[in-house]
């Protein structure tokens, strides 16, 4: 009986096949732009500017990727990849460190002004960098931080999402642990390092995945503050590879760069799928 009901709900036979067919069609449609970019990165410019371009990869893979990585258009893509990596890791690590510290202070201490600080931090949740770009640009420029990693990183860690996540998590750590630490005469920072940080491992890892993608995929901010091509990040640098006039863009190089730009975040998302989904659900709660 149970099996029959099951059969009514979860399709078998023809229905099951149909579900798979639709699912595969969906995946193909969603993958099509990526596939096409990959094909374009393995053929010659001549193959592309006489449409329609081929739909199967050509034999120029090494030529195009070597050309992109070591020469690029304005600057070697290898340099841009390095800049992106530093920016993404800087944002992820920076935000996690300052958030762990401030969440620990807010949860485990009663100090004057705690409520005020809490609300000040809360306010920063509300305003994405896109909204305050002009004055933020002026601040960064006045500090001489244009074309620098600190200029790329600091304005993007000034938001409190991570602080909130850690606060929520710290509140679930049993009080007995802090009590025991206090009885043993452990200093607060010892408690922080030996108990709080190890217990937050999974949350830290999940948040790292989300913040890495967030940092890697930034576009507007690097576009504004990196006027020197040597400091371009890969995501904003692709647009700079298009010629300004009526010339043909060099599509194989541009598409090889696009593929290179998506490899690190795809590895992070697919490779750490569990953590990624957890981080996604946590940070939107």
């Amino acid at each position, binding site marked *: 009986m149970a099996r029959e009901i099951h059969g009514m*709900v979860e399709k078998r036979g023809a229905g099951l096949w149909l579900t798979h067919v639709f699912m595969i069609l969906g995946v193909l449609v969603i993958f099509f*732009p990526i596939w096409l970019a990959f094909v374009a990165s393995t053929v010659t410019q001549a193959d592309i500017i006489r449409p329609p371009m081929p739909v199967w990869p050509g034999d120029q893979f090494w030529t195009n990727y070597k050309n992109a990585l070591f020469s690029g258009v304005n600057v070697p893509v290898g340099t841009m990849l390095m800049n992106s990596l530093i920016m993404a890791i800087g944002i992820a690590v920076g935000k996690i460190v300052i958030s762990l510290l*401030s969440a620990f202070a807010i949860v485990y201490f009663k100090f004057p002004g705690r409520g005020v600080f809490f609300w000040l931090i809360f306010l920063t949740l509300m305003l994405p960098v896109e909204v305050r770009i002009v004055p933020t640009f002026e601040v960064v420029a006045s500090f001489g931080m244009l074309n620098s990693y600190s200029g790329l990183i600091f304005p993007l860690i*000034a938001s409190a999402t991570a602080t909130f996540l850690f606060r929520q998590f710290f509140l679930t750590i049993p009080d007995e642990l802090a009590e025991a630490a206090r009885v043993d005469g452990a200093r607060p920072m010892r408690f922080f390092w030996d108990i709080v940080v190890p217990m937050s491992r999974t949350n830290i890892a999940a948040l790292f995945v989300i913040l890495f993608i967030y940092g890697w995929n930034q576009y*507007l901010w690097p576009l504004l503050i990196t006027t020197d091509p040597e400091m371009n990040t890969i995501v904003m640098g692709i647009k700079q590879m298009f010629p300004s006039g009526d010339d043909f863009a060099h599509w194989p190089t541009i598409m090889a760069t696009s593929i290179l730009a998506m490899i690190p975040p795809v590895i992070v998302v697919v490779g750490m799928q569990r953590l990624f989904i957890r981080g996604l659900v946590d940070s939107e*709660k």
Partner: protein
Amino acid sequence: MEKRVTFRGWLLPLLLIAPQVIISAVFFFYPAGQAIWQSLFIPDPFGLSMQYVGLGNFEFLLSDPFYRASFVTTAIFSILVTLCSMIPALFLAVLADRLIKGSGVYRTLLIWPYAVAPAVAGVLWLFMFNTRVGVVSWYLGQLGYDWNHVLNGGEAMGLVVVASAWGRISYNFLFFFAALQAVPKSVIEAAAIDGAHFWRRFWTIVLPLLSPTTFFLLVVNIVYAFFETFGVIHTITAGGPQQTTTILVYKVFSDGFVGQDLGSSSAQSVILLIVVGLLTVVQFKFIEKRVHY
């Protein structure tokens, strides 16, 4: 909620909180304050001094047909992005939920586009629809349709909507799939025994149970369309043709950085700030409700 057990001292917590407070003050509160302050002034033609105009910038903006058009553009754009990313995602999630085996493989494949930056997604879609080399535009040409998003505003809008919605399908899929998996199987099976076929079960049982997720995704996707699609628009259309794809965030950028109109750009930032505030309130109200759900 508070901890019963806390540590003593006030210097240490202030030191711990200092990095975040300093960074927020310098890179968040000061610039945000500047935006509000500058929105009350206009620079003189030589850029030497600022003249106080009160709410003049706002009055000017709200009577400016281009700004009002940008509001309408943003509304259309965000509704379309939300629909084009949520409907396919729900469809795929329903399919994946019906599979006993293999849904993990599909999920792994479907989350790829989420990792692709909006600006890179813009380049990929631009490549397919490029007027000279694009594969899709070429085949459309063979069918007798002359695709040209550089000149045609409607086509430009369609292209930026699809490119923006593409990566979001992954995101929405994950949330819908998780929500579908949480629907109690016993309820579905009871309905099946009563003879309700698949579509009837979907409309009368599953969809109502998904409504908290759906509402959450509506808000989150609108916020995304408002603030995170700059890269798509900048790479594909740069706001054109004739400003048909100039959404509000793009206009803050083009008036502030390209047009150097600081007063107007700041006033626009303040208006956006109010919009974000309202959306955040809606989101929090909803989350409160969901807790009791």
